[in-house]
């Protein structure tokens, strides 16, 4: 046991002018604009294939890109462009926030970071419906954060449901603690970069099940198993004591806000024409607003406007400034 009164928040290295949550086309474009405006910019992103563009096989209508390009490749180019202007990109997940006041605090898997402004660009691939048993057994074997809770599953068998690189990362992390990790991908292939898939295949503790949909989490007071539907092969029950869920859906991702921003009836964040929310210094862009056509070019355009809005807000300008070229 030890006393911990260290103040990590507020240290210069962890304090930014603007933190952008989500590195999709909206967030990456916002970062291009804020970094180019000399604002200290951090992008926090769960992974290249955690969002809609990263999962898109081919895109052929993005202006300036002639011919087809993979969504992940287009996204990497946008991120590289933001980084080239000085933005920092960190693979991390925001668990909670404190948005009130002039300094915004974000609690992530890797620590605590602060900023004068926050742009929420988390997209709309959040889960809607839960599977049977999930809510009841939350904290009793059901978890959404392997990096938080893996230590409780030392030498036990666990299941990870999901196919994104976030799910893969968490499954690989769990192999350090668990005896066996079933990785249940609802699709016939993992939506993760090839080198990560290779790591999965090479890890003796990982048992990858492709086309396996999580149907139910079983157990009375704690998780005792999962019921899984296998594509074209009926169902099976796996005896596990932990179920880590990273499935995706079509809902705006706002759970980490813990109700600090108002949402519409359908769970969407609400903003003004400069993409500012009701909380000063907090902006939202892209599919998390879900009031427009879901196209990368639209999300990118919103990112550009929000980037300029943040610059205006932080520098006390009255009007948006479009060109920072020297």
């Amino acid at each position, binding site marked *: 046991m030890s006393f*911990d009164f260290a103040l990590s928040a507020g240290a210069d290295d962890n304090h930014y002018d603007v933190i952008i949550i989500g590195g999709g086309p909206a967030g990456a474009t916002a970062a291009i604009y804020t970094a180019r405006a000399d604002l200290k910019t951090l992008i926090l992103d769960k992974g290249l294939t955690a969002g809609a563009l990263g999962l898109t096989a081919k895109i052929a209508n993005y202006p300036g890109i002639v011919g087809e390009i993979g969504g992940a490749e287009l996204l990497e180019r946008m991120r590289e462009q933001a980084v080239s202007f000085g933005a920092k990109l960190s693979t991390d997940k925001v668990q909670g926030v404190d948005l009130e006041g002039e300094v915004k605090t974000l*609690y992530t898997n890797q*620590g605590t970071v602060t900023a004068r402004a926050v742009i929420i660009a988390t997209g709309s691939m959040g889960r809607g419906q839960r599977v049977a048993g999930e809510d009841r057994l939350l904290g009793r074997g059901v978890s959404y954060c392997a990096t938080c809770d893996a230590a409780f599953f030392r030498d036990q068998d666990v299941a990870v449901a999901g196919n994104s690189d976030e799910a893969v990362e968490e499954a690989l992390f769990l192999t350090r603690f668990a005896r066996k990790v079933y990785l249940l991908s609802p699709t016939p292939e993992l939506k993760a970069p090839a080198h990560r898939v290779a790591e999965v295949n090479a890890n003796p503790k990982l048992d990858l099940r492709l086309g396996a949909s999580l149907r139910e989490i079983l157990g009375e007071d704690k998780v005792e198993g999962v019921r899984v539907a296998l594509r074209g092969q009926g169902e099976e029950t796996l005896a596990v004591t932990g179920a880590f869920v990273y499935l995706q859906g079509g809902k705006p991702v706002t759970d980490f806000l813990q109700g600090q921003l108002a949402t519409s009836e359908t769970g969407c964040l609400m903003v003004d024409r400069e993409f500012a929310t009701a909380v000063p210094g907090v902006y939202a862009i892209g599919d998390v607003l879900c009031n427009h056509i879901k196209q990368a070019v639209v999300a990118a355009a919103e990112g550009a406007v929000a980037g300029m809005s943040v610059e205006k807000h932080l520098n006390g300008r009255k009007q948006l400034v479009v060109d920072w070229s020297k």
Partner: protein
Amino acid sequence: MSSQPAKPQPRVIVFSTPTCGFCNQAKAYFRQKNVRYTDVDVSRDQSAARDMVRRSGQQGVPVIDIGGTLVLGFNRPKIDQLLGLK
């Protein structure tokens, strides 16, 4: 430092892991409110982890012990109630 609570503060123990956002959020909240707490890193202290699971039935962090009452997760209203915070 701001004013101390009128009554002695109950003992506060935060069962946490270093990579848990809600744990850090809870600890930051305690610091902000000048609440003294003991931090137990259950990723390093296996016997504490087993004790926490046995007492709470929880296999997730944070679990916060406030004067013997267990709070599951960063449940701010419950914490405020138990510590008499506003």
